């Protein structure tokens, strides 16, 4: 029952092997977390899965179809969407318009109809707008639909990206550090949003630094360190895994030791 399988993914930038033989399988309807210390390759892995980077070897299978080397557009058509760690919001557009772009694949894209503003285009704009407002409400952004995205606070933009990704009606949603830079209250809000999304039948894969968030909401956790798989399992398993503890704490210990010598 896996919706996403990656097998032996590998990518190198120059001499640095960023991802080295990582494999995992995400089950339908679960919340699957990728964690690891800074530089472990989490975002790189996300970029490969979502088609922004081309893997040097390995395979990505989405819902039974081999989608290795697919472009992000092709993946979007097949039900994959994502958010970004460093925001990729459409800042010159309103909050509602940001989400409306997410409806692109579900809209009639006949340019001639658009040039002439046929009545069907107006009708479609209204449906798209209504759906965008629903999604904004879902992520707790009701009332800001017509505000410029550039005027929204950071935490709201994080949720705006989630609403926008959901607008594509994904089967699987990749969230890249949804709580990064958020205060504890905002983190809890995002926590609730992710649970709601999962409850609606969307599989969620997330990269996250906030350990408490990860432990609280994930069904399974996959730990990366320096581009390799370190461990995989439930929250309790991962927490008590000695390799994981060393990767997080030991790494820091080494850095401290290095500074001490100076």
């Amino acid at each position, binding site marked *: 029952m896996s919706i996403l399988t990656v097998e032996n993914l590998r990518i190198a930038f120059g001499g640095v092997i960023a991802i080295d033989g990582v494999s995992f399988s995400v089950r339908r309807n679960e919340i699957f977390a990728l964690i690891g210390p800074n530089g472990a390759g989490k975002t790189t892995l996300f970029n490969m899965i979502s088609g922004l980077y081309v893997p040097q070897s390995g395979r990505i299978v989405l819902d039974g179809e081999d989608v290795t080397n697919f472009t992000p*557009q092709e993946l979007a058509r097949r039900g994959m969407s994502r958010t970004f760690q460093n925001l990729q919001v459409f800042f*010159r557009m309103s909050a509602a318009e940001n989400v409306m772009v997410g409806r692109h694949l579900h809209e009639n894209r006949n340019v001639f109809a658009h040039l002439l503003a046929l009545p069907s285009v107006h009708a479609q704009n209204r449906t798209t707008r209504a759906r965008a407002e629903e999604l904004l409400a879902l992520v707790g952004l009701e009332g800001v639909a017509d505000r410029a995205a550039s005027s929204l606070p950071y935490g709201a933009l994080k949720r705006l990206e989630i609403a926008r990704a959901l607008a594509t009606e994904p089967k699987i949603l990749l969230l890249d550090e949804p709580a990064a830079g958020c205060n504890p209250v905002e983190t809890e809000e995002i926590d609730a949003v992710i649970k709601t999304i999962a409850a609606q039948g969307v599989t969620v894969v997330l990269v996250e630094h906030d350990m408490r968030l990860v432990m609280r909401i994930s069904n399974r956790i996959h730990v990366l360190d320096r581009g390799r798989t370190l461990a995989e399992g439930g929250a309790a398993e991962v927490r008590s895994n000695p390799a994981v503890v060393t990767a997080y704490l030991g790494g820091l210990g080494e850095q401290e030791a290095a500074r001490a010598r100076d």
Partner: protein
Amino acid sequence: MRRCLNSPFLLILALGAVVALLPLILPSNFYVRVVAIVYINALAVLGLNLLMGFAGQVSLGHAGFFGIGAYAVALGPVYLGLPGWASLIGGTALSGLLAFVVGRPILRLSGYYLAIATLGMGVLISMVVSNEANITGGPNGMEVPRLVLFGSRITGSLTWYWISGITLVIGALIVVNLIESPTGRAFRAIHDSEIAARVLGVDVARYKLLAFVLSAVFTSIAGSYLVLLDGFVTPNTTSFLLSIELVVMAVLGGLGSILGSIVGAAILVILPQFLTVFHDYEHAVLGAIIIVFLIFLPSGIVPALASLIRRGPA
């Protein structure tokens, strides 16, 4: 005022009213002609704004398309025996086709690289026109046969005022329609974040190309109109300087602003008429004025004024 600047359809209505009523107060044929030239330039800038202001792709070679439109109406009747209107349509199609063919490879570039590539395209077209002197008259230019529609020769500033004014209103309406559609949202999304647009399923290459082709079509029609009004065409219609002027009009008026396209064109066409008192320093003064405008209204005249009105006690 506030609603007027915000609602695109009221803007079209207002524009239509201005076009319809302006001839009543213009004191002489000279002014009618100047305003017609404003409309023609505004049409080109509107197209360029679609590409630069909305889709966020720079072009420093749009005079190439302007020139294709211009030379099409000059060469079509003389060498192919085509009627003027057919030459105009042919030139527009040729510009669109060229934009389609050239756009595919060069729109993969972005920023400075795209600027240089489009510049190269413009210069290339300009050189063809200048060097094929036995066909185009080279630097001396050539006469453009008067447009004949329904058996009557189209001459006179006022006639061209109406043709260019109506075309501008239609052009603005088309841009408004587009911007308020999925295509327009795709353009604006690409402007802000190509990566996010791609991830949401927007075919970025296709929409960039579409913006490029549409802007080429607008600019080409403007080129045809201008030389039909003048009755003469020179390589100036394809010059690099004209490409820059179009970009200045778009930026000065306000990128991504429909009204801004018209205001920008108006300023750059009308201001030099007043600056002739400075004789040799005319262009220097014009340059200084543009710099001052951009320092104090960096987002362009219309967007800056619009945000002032929004902030003020409206």
